[in-house]
């Protein structure tokens, strides 16, 4: 993994997870995106996020997973964890081309609107605090970061 926001980096347990929160690790494919959204929303709410932020995290998880479904292997895993300050949402695709047609940059250089192709990633970068994408031999991993305290 060459990503800037690999799980080992972003997920360091240097802070306490919110009470009631349990990490999520769930497989998805084209037929289970609804279940993915429901699970992400439930876990994001348990992390203490408000209604609007829960929606944002859910939307980003969906867009990253949809990318893997449409442009990549067709399936993957979604993981959610916190380090006490941030909630991390990571979507990994065990195919090689999951986000291959997306620029491998961090959140600061969002693609200009309009850009239908890659619009999901554009949205993720607009909504999340930071999005990192890494390509490796085992596939592609996108990690979005959200502050646990309202900005």
């Amino acid at each position, binding site marked *: 993994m060459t990503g800037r926001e690999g799980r080992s980096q972003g997920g360091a347990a240097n802070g306490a997870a919110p009470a009631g929160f349990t990490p999520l690790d769930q497989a998805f494919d084209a037929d289970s995106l609804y279940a993915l959204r429901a699970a992400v929303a439930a876990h994001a709410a348990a992390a203490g996020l408000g209604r609007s932020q829960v929606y944002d995290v859910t939307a980003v998880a969906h867009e990253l997973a949809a990318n893997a479904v449409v442009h990549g292997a067709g399936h993957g895993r979604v993981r959610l964890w916190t380090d006490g300050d941030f909630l991390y949402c990571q979507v990994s695709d065990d195919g090689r081309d999951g986000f291959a047609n997306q620029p491998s940059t961090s959140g600061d250089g969002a693609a200009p*609107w309009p850009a239908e192709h890659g619009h999901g990633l554009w949205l993720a970068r607009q909504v999340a605090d930071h999005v990192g994408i890494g390509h490796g031999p085992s596939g592609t991993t996108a990690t979005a970061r959200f502050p646990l305290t309202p900005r």
Partner: protein
Amino acid sequence: MTANADVQVTELGAEDHACLTFGESEELFDLTAAFVRDGLSAGLKVVWLSDVGPGLAAGELGRRGVPVEPALAREQMTAAGWEGRLLTGQAFRASAAVGWLAGELESCGRQGFPGLRVALDMSWALRPVAGIEELPEFEEGIAAALDGSTAAVLCQYDRERFDPVTLASVGGFHTRAVAAATYHADALLRICRQYAPPGIRIAGELDFQAAEPLALALAEAVRLGGDITVNMSALAFIDARCTLLIADAARAAGSQSRVVTLRCQPEVAKGFARIGLAGLPGIRLVAAGDR
């Protein structure tokens, strides 16, 4: 993905005895509003029997752009319950109910209206009512009463609550079957036409997998002309692809003379605002809670 009804509610005319089936109250009120709106604007007398009551009925119709208070005040419209009309002391007799309809036809003529429209919410028949076995006889009686008249009757059946046998037993007496044109319907998502105000209604969760029926629904709404409402009040989730589809349709159709209204929850509205849809000429982005 095509209209699943013989006829649209907006196409009903004199002598039509229509069987409307609906899946949720939102759909019932929408179709009723269109039926009432078209009747009032044609100068007809309109009667709506339900358990909603005149105040709530006026509210539901008003929310859909059909102000009925003036019509209620001048007795062009009646919104009333079933008791004393279809029911007597919670008992049903087909002959008495048909007699009530005949009386309405007569008084409508006496009042000088050129015709009558009657909407009958049939959910009373789901209650423990004596004489319910006369329901087919009632529907047959309506058909006879309408023959050669200037009236139309819209019988409203909840397709989720009435059993298929009952629906089949009364279906044959109707000359028309009416339902909302539906583009997609499953446990997670429903996309159907909205009749009052005209447009489409999307409820549930919408993502790229339903892009095709969404595009069809949008294209048909645009083709019908006039202002368009995309009612997403009951839409809990929309993805980027579908946000873009709706935004593109709104941008293309909205103009100074044609307003496209997007009605949605605040989280969904934020998505449209993010891609620059707020404040564009011809586009109204209304989040729940806004006026």
